């Protein structure tokens, strides 16, 4: 018997796999996802890239049921989350979500943000929740900010708190929706470094990002979406370094050379 491996917050305890098959989502007459299929193995990191409006956020939000897809199947581990009978709250307890706008609770301290769901959802005691919260704050390097209000932190620090908040629930899967897009350039690196550590520790991660260096270096696989379909997917270095499809090439050259003007008009 060896219990030393179960230190809370040190690693993903049971990283889950995600399996998406034939996913359709529309808003009224607007088809946003047109049959998406995608596999993420346990402990795997998959980055979703693609132009604005291609449906990346919608796909991510379907995985934790913030949106209800019209068609298709999503499994997390061996639970079919698209089953109409499924306990949505139980699914979300296993899935951590990090938003572009952080969405920290402004009326609670940093520590309060990390403990409230542990106590109200997982039923942990105050002391237990606090202990897990402090471990995760240390992990993101913000233990000394525990008593601060979120508004007193920089954007990058707020996002690190948001990651620690999600990790405090001991998730089996983490979803990131452009976690660094709202940040000042100098704070982006801190957030990416934490995500890199998390990937190394074996967390299953599905990450929407425009940080191509991160996708190339950290992701196991990269999925390029456009117009609600998966256009190209494969090993990170291949998709980012040597894209096969024309639309992927065009997108990557735009993202990697944002200052380059296509054709000077006058």
């Amino acid at each position: 018997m060896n219990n030393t491996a179960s230190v809370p917050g040190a690693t993903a305890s049971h990283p889950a796999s995600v399996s998406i098959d034939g996913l359709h989502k529309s808003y009224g007459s607007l088809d946003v996802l047109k049959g998406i299929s995608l596999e993420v193995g346990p402990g795997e990191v998959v980055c979703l890239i693609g132009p604005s409006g291609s449906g990346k956020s919608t796909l991510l939000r379907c995985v934790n049921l913030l949106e209800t897809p019209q068609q298709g199947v999503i499994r997390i581990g061996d639970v079919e989350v698209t089953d109409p009978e499924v306990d949505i709250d139980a699914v979300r307890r296993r899935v951590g979500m990090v938003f572009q706008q952080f969405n920290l609770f402004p009326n609670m301290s940093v520590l309060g943000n990390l403990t409230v769901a542990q106590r109200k959802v997982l039923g942990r005691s105050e002391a237990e929740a606090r202990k897990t919260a402090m471990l995760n704050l240390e992990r993101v390097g913000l233990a000394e900010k525990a008593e601060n209000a979120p508004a007193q932190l920089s954007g990058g620090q707020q996002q690190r708190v948001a990651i620690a908040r999600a990790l405090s629930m001991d998730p089996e899967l983490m979803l990131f929706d452009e976690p660094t897009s709202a940040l000042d350039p100098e704070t982006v690196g801190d957030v990416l470094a934490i995500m890199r550590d998390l990937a190394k520790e074996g967390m299953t991660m599905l990450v929407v990002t425009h940080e191509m260096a991160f996708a190339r270096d950290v992701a196991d696989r990269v999925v390029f979406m456009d117009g609600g379909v998966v256009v190209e997917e494969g090993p990170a270095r291949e998709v980012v370094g040597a894209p096969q499809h024309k639309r992927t090439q065009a997108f990557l050259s735009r993202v990697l050379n944002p200052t380059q003007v296509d054709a000077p008009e006058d």
Partner: protein
Amino acid sequence: MAMTARERAKVSRGVQYGLLVVIVIALVFIADWNTLISRALNPSVMAQQFPEIITVALKNTLIYTALGFVAGMSGGILLALMRLSSVAPYRWIATLYIELFRGVPALLVFLALGFGVPLAFQVRFNNLVTVMLALGLVSAAYIAESLRAGLQAVPKGQYEAARSLGMSHSRAMITIVIPQALRIVLPPLTNEVILLAKDSSLVYLLGMTVSQYELTKFGREAISGSGAGLTPLVLAGVCYLVITVPLGLLARYFEQRADARSARH
């Protein structure tokens, strides 16, 4: 003689102050101070009003206001949740109610409850219940609108973050959304209490025993006494201000705190 915008503003402000001073001086000289003081600010009449104006009238005004607010809050919370419900008939009923009771003078509601309901249903509530119902019915409509606006002002991401952490709908509302909405609605709710304090004067319509008099009724009874003049009403007015001015300051404090909070975001 070109003037800069700043100079022009300075001159304009000077003229405005000058005008104010002239008006005040004119009023001071035109007013018949002796008559005014003896009829409206008579010290001996003032002294006669005590202690009842405090121990009965002010106390009852506060009780009626508090009862009205409790009833209005209860109704307002219910109506606000109905307005935001996904069940269409709930929304229709709430909208109808809010439009009806915002559009009708409180006086008519008092008359309807005091005289219409007893005729229609052969029941007669005691005065306290009627006051509570009448003030509650009217203020519930306003409170519901404030609460709805407050709930909608909490960013959607707050609710989504709470749900993403595994909270149920009601848990997310109670723990995350409603506490933030309450901060937003504190200023309008405080203003609603001010309106209630003033509307509680309408109780006089119901006919009351002496021990039920509130400030306005108390003042009106007192001036009908021989030679009392207007002094009791002036005193009643001062008592209203004792209630409403601190509340107004409180509302402004809440507003500034909310502004400071949102400025930091």
